[in-house]
């Protein structure tokens, strides 16, 4: 007498033609003696057949393309792929970066140069000349202070 576990194993193996010669014969004689077992076996066979006849499933046509696109995105985001990603950035983006960097450097250079220029171009402090008439009219010419 088989345990329920063993019976289950035998039933599966029998349905899948995985029983060895002696085991298959023994199971055949069990079936001959048990109408319930035969009914159970037939029902299971029917279920297996119905399941096997379900339509085959196909992946979408662009499935492989989507996978490779996702793979590339991941490779770009991965640390080891970051440098390669930077290199492969579109030319326009790189150009913008170069232009912005050049503009930034130029502005910094200008800012550094400007105080010196101001100092150089700064006119000497001037005082009005000693012309009473001009002083009165407010149009007195200025003369530079002599240092």
């Amino acid at each position, binding site marked *: 007498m088989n345990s329920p*576990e063993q019976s*289950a*194993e*035998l*039933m*599966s*193996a029998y*349905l*899948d*033609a*995985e029983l060895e010669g002696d085991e298959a014969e023994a199971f055949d004689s069990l079936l001959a003696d048990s109408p319930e077992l035969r009914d159970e076996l037939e*029902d*299971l066979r*029917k*279920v*297996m057949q*119905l*399941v*096997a*006849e*379900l*339509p*085959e*499933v*196909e*992946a*979408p046509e662009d*499935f*492989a393309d*989507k*996978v*490779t696109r*996702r*793979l590339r995105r*991941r490779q770009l985001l991965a640390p080891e792929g970051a440098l390669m990603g930077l290199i492969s950035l579109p030319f326009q983006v790189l150009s913008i970066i170069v232009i912005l960097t050049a503009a930034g450097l130029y502005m910094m250079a200008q800012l550094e140069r400007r105080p010196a220029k101001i100092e150089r171009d700064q006119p000497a402090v001037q005082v009005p000349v000693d012309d009473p008439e001009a002083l009165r009219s407010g149009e007195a010419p200025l003369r530079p202070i002599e240092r």
Partner: protein
Amino acid sequence: MPGKDAASVTAAESQSAPTVSPPPDERSAADVRDRRLVRRIRNGDDRAFEELVRIYQNRIFGLTLRMIGNRQEAEDLAQEVFLTVHKAIASYRGEGRFYTWLYRIASNTCKNRIKYLRGRNFHRSVPVEDNPEAQGGGDGPVVPLQSQIAGPEAMAQGTRLQDAISRELANLDPEHRLLIVLRDIQGLSYSDILRITGLQEGTLKSRLHRARVALKDRLADYLK
């Protein structure tokens, strides 16, 4: 359909869904092809990876769709499986057939996603057979259940039965569902399923039996 062999499916054949068990020499040719592809992928050949995806995409998508029951989710999951394969290919030790390793990754990814989706109270929104693509696309040797009986009413009845099978299959315990998909739908051998699932032979047989009984009980009304 037992005996369908995933490894024997070439890229072109995979589009037409083979149903015949290949002779051993074809099987070993497929193994050789897979080993070459793996070697090329390890060397950074992205075209080899794309070829591998095209060979196995229908099988893996079929597995994820039957396991998850929602096309969009299943497609995302199948893509994830291939990305994991690419990432982990260096750790593949070449033991056994390549596709059993691929299926192991796929089945573990499915189980993890099912757990995650359960946590988010996810419900399948699109029945497996609702989309025309799921009907085999017209190229494959699909023998729909409807064709067994003639007439429009019989066609509708057959479609209802297919929907019921898909629905009840999707309602099985994930462990049971996986075994039914691998064995009764995809036709993998016991030895392949043992490698994929890591089960003992006795456990596989008894669990497969319980899975079939559970499905039979759920379909009892339709079987009368």
